[in-house]
């Protein structure tokens, strides 16, 4: 085994290497790149993720765990599915954006209540947005503050809602 190049094993969780220089498994994101991605895309400060560890199970699927454990670990799930990597545009999960998106300061679109309903149903809608294309934190005002609904994908003047089926609601 030790003569082979390490590869991703879909049956277990491996902690992400600290930096790209520490990488042993080809194509695996590093902790540094993951944290920088949230900062660059959404302006979420890197210190938000102090005290969390990041793991890969299944190709490109990154999970976030509060605290740390010995790596690798063969169990069913660890913390929360967080980010899809190993593709051109990394994609955050709805649940991760609901949990950490309050600290986002860029690529954030505030929706009206009616637009938020459309988003929660998982439907695509036209959107007047002058900013970047790609993944946006979609928010609406609830109980006095902006609250993230999830991640939307803005392309060609439309906001797609990738809210998973089980999370969709008719509100």
């Amino acid at each position: 085994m030790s003569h082979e190049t390490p590869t991703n094993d879909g049956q277990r969780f491996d902690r992400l290497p600290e930096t790209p220089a520490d990488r042993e498994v080809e194509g695996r994101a590093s902790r540094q790149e993951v944290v920088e991605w949230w900062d660059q895309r959404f302006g979420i400060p890197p210190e938000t993720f102090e005290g969390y560890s990041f793991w890969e199970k299944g190709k490109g699927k990154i999970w976030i765990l509060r605290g740390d454990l010995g790596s690798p670990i063969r169990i069913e799930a660890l913390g929360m599915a967080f980010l899809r990597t190993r593709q051109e545009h990394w994609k955050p999960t709805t649940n991760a954006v609901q949990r950490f998106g309050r600290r986002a300061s860029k690529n954030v679109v505030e929706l009206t209540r009616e637009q938020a309903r459309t988003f929660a149903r998982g439907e695509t809608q036209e959107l007047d947005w002058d900013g970047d294309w790609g993944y946006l934190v979609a928010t609406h005002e609830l109980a006095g503050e902006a609250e993230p609904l999830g991640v939307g994908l803005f392309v060609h003047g439309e906001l797609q809602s990738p809210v998973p089926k089980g999370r969709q609601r008719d509100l």
Partner: protein
Amino acid sequence: METLERYEPLIEDFDAFLDACGRSLPSVVRVNTIKATVERAKRALDEQGVGWTDREWSDTVLELDTTNPGSTWASFHGWIHGQEEVSAIPTEILDPEPGEKVWDACAAPGSKTTQLAALMDDEGLVVANDNNLGRLSALRFNTERLGVTNTAVTNQDARNFSLKPFDFPAFDRALVDVPCSCEGTIRKNPTTLDEWTMSHVRSVAGVQKGILRRAIQATREGGTVVYSTCTFAPEENEAVVDHALAAEDCRLVEFDVGLDSRPGVTEWDGDEYDESLAKAKRFYPHHNDTGGFFCAKLEVEA
């Protein structure tokens, strides 16, 4: 309902008990403090015109005036979670602290797992185990919807649970909310007693004993184990704890909860149980307008 007649010797005001068992349950939710404060969750409910009532015994449990709490913004954001009132008891009794390692032996579908995580401020580790792989997907759905990140999910038979995947030797606390005959859920599932048999009670009691014993073994000295069921049958409640008291190093401890309850029984159907079983609590539907429940708190000894 005839099944319940066997409990007449245990329950005062038995007619009121039977009447309560025939009524549907109030709609109760728990506020998920990982994602919102209780104040903000209440304000979101107010904005949608959903009425709520505080429950005196818990800051986070609310009764709602809607039968469909899932169709609220508060639910979409994971600020509230539909959870029967008595089901919130054992986690409060276990009372985990942030940073501890806690085992949820029969965790699916995750109401108590997520409540444990919330009481721990999502710090430390909850090992959420269930032997049913299908039900684990419901557990994962709930932990992620409620924004929980301190959970490790395992798929083992709790009776011989192995700590091998983990780099620590024992848990600080364990929650043993076991599969049971579910008599106490009759208000939610009126047909729950249709398939009741004494032989099922006996066989599930054997499983319960195995899980409780393993939880005591896997918890450090001085740690806490809470055992609970949603059934009235002493065979699945006091008899199981009595068995664990005799077989493992542990003792029952007193606890308070701001709901009306009756002490655990010390004799039933010709059997006698350790007298400390009076420290356990039985929750009956007609006392607090809830489902039925049993809860015992144990301290692990050397």
